[in-house]
């Protein structure tokens, strides 16, 4: 907290405003832009790691029968793919974007607690190394699915589970500290005149996300702590034989898990709410309703968790309550989709890459939302439960939802970060390859899922062969294309067409008032917001 005064007093130290030199700059930095960049690079490395695991999964599922990996290893791949993508790729990417953009969007010199910011980043690589290292331990890594249901994750888990538990603890600590920092920044460091209802949507959605994070990450920490005690200290939280209850694990997990899926989507809502108005050259339609819709979604996320557990044997009244509560979420989400479409309506739209990704987001996220509605119907869910239909559903909301929004944000703000325009042609290739690859991968999964193909199984019945072949080809296409994204980003960092402070004609917001590339310190004197 002293650093708030530090940054203010750095006004008199005009000579000391550049980054330090050498490797230690990155270890010791408290600069929100440095830390944001490190978050983004970390999440991209994790994205490729988790993606490589997805490639192994798709390679094994390319044909029926067992070809490439053992079932035990396949289980570790599905588990680690999920864990790494959720905790290593998507969440840190959003925190990285928050670090980079929130101070510049609200006219703050830095995050409220720059040193804690450094700490919350540097926990991550260690947690990730610990998580990935379990794969090389005796008995292999986590193999119980990313939801780690007890007793599979307690009585029947490999010895490395303890390392998995500590990795989750560390990732949780990092997220909670990041969230507290973001809340403190948004609530206290806004420039004079920046009232709450003038904040950009990205700031709003992140504020709400941060509250979700501090509300549910501790519950996850509690769940893994109980697992730890069940495994090592002879307690029976989840052991039916000892008076505990495995179903309790699912309740606790999904009490965390459902808000968690909104943690992974709300910042996306903020990103596309910034990009669509910029390229439609119209202000965002229904700003106030967007804010309230986001808050409603966040509230509802706490009372729908048991829709993940319709088949465990909850009473009829419970099934009905959770079914209707879940369906209710479609209302605020519908408000959001309506507002985006209305923003585009009669706008002077151009389709640069950020807009392409955002438009694809709106269309494909809606498809994922519809399959979610299908799953929310409790009696039908008994058919869909644990099939590839579920896999199709959550990949349709997470890949075009979270990942496409992150791509859109990267392309949208890359000129601001680097001072150069990215290669538009290559970026469009990246978009179309991702778009086609993603749909080719996940759309057929709806069909095989409805026909009854179970998830998390390395082999399948022969009649699913053609659709799985298509999925695998799409998966390889989507995966390879991400290397192109890496190339585009590196190329943009190294050079390109120079851009002015505001490279996008219709863009709005304080971040476009600072030069491109954004100087190491911005808004050391707060701007005046009218």
């Amino acid at each position, binding site marked *: 907290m002293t650093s708030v*005064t530090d940054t*203010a007093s750095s006004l008199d130290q005009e000579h000391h405003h550049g980054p330090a030199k050498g490797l230690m700059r990155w270890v010791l930095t408290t600069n929100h832009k440095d830390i944001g960049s490190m978050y983004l690079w970390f999440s991209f490395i994790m994205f490729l790691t988790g993606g490589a695991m997805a490639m192994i999964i798709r390679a094994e599922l390319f044909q029926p029968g067992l070809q490439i990996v053992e079932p035990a290893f396949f289980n570790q791949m599905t588990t680690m793919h999920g864990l790494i993508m959720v905790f290593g790729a998507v969440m840190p990417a959003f925190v990285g974007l928050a670090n980079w953009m929130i101070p510049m969007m609200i006219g703050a010199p830095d995050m409220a607690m720059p040193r804690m910011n450094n700490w919350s980043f540097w926990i991550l690589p260690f947690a990730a190394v610990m998580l990935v290292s379990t794969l090389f331990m005796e008995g292999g890594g986590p193999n119980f699915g990313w939801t780690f249901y007890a007793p599979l994750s307690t009585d029947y888990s490999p010895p490395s589970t303890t390392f998995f538990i500590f990795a989750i603890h560390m990732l949780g600590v990092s997220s909670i500290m990041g969230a*507290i920092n973001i*809340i403190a920044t948004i609530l*206290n460091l806004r420039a004079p005149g920046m009232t709450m209802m003038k904040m950009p949507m990205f700031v709003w959605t992140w504020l709400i996300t941060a509250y979700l994070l501090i509300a549910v990450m*501790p519950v996850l920490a509690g*769940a893994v702590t109980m697992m730890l005690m069940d495994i090592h200290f002879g307690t029976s939280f989840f052991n039916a*034989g*000892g008076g505990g209850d495995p179903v309790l694990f699912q309740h606790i997990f999904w009490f965390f898990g459902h808000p968690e899926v909104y943690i992974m989507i709300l910042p996306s809502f903020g990103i596309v709410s910034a990009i669509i108005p910029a390229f439609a050259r119209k202000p965002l339609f229904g700003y106030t309703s967007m804010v309230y819709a986001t808050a409603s979604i966040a509230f509802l996320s706490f009372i729908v968790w048991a829709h993940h557990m319709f088949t465990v044997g909850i009473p009829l009244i419970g099934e009905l309550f959770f079914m209707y509560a879940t369906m209710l979420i479609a209302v605020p989400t519908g408000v959001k989709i309506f507002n985006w479409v209305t923003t585009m309506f009669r706008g002077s739209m151009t389709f640069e890459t950020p807009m392409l990704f955002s438009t694809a987001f709106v269309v494909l996220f809606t498809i994922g939302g519809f399959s979610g509605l299908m799953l929310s119907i409790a009696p039908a869910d008994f058919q869909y439960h644990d099939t590839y239909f579920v896999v199709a559903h959550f990949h349709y909301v997470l890949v075009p939802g979270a990942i496409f929004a992150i791509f859109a944000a990267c392309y949208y703000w890359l000129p601001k970060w680097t001072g150069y325009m990215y290669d538009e042609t290559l970026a469009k290739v990246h978009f179309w390859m991702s778009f086609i690859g993603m749909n080719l991968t996940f759309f057929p999964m709806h069909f095989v899922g409805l026909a009854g193909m179970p998830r998390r199984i390395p082999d399948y019945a022969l009649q699913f062969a053609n659709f799985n072949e298509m999925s695998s080809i799409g998966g390889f296409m989507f995966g390879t294309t991400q290397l192109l994204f890496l190339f585009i980003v590196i190329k943009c960092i190294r050079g390109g067409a120079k851009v002015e402070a505001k490279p996008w004609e219709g863009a709005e917001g304080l971040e476009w008032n600072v030069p491109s590339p954004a100087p190491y310190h911005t808004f050391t004197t707060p701007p005046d917001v009218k």
Partner: protein
Amino acid sequence: MSEQDREQPESIEHSTRRTVIRSTLVACGMFAFGFAMVPLYNVFCQVTGLNGKTDPNPYMYKAAEAKVDTSRDIKVQFVATKNAGMSWDFYPSTPQVTVHPGEPGLLNFVAKNPTGKTIVGQAIPSVTPFEATNFLHKVECFCFTTQTLQPWEEKVMPLRIIVDQELPKHIKKLTLSYTLFDVTHLN
């Protein structure tokens, strides 16, 4: 102006500190809430009879109202399991009894200590289907207290049950399951 500038960071620092303390308290509170879900869940299950948790008050059944409903035959099945680490032999004398609602059913459970140590055991009941949980009454049960067995001792423990006349009509079969715990270290 310059004085204001000097005071501004002070107040930001204070409000930031307040925000951080509050957020940290929320996070700690939610960690505690995660653990509070365990007893809350148990209470919820006991009140609603979900998950086969039987009511802790074994004397809820009022014998005065008893009137045997001979129109129905209810099968009550018994399951005996041992928690990990429990060394006793533990089994019901009969796997199943058939009773009319309101009519007492009597049987025995047998426990045998096959070790050379004195062991204290506690049995925990559970009933399925969960809708029937509150309609199966234990008038006399070895699970009301702990049981102590001397080395090599064998004990026959009586169990008297009554199925409530209010038992929903569609339920024809109940399962009463006991899990036996070694609670020697608690005594």
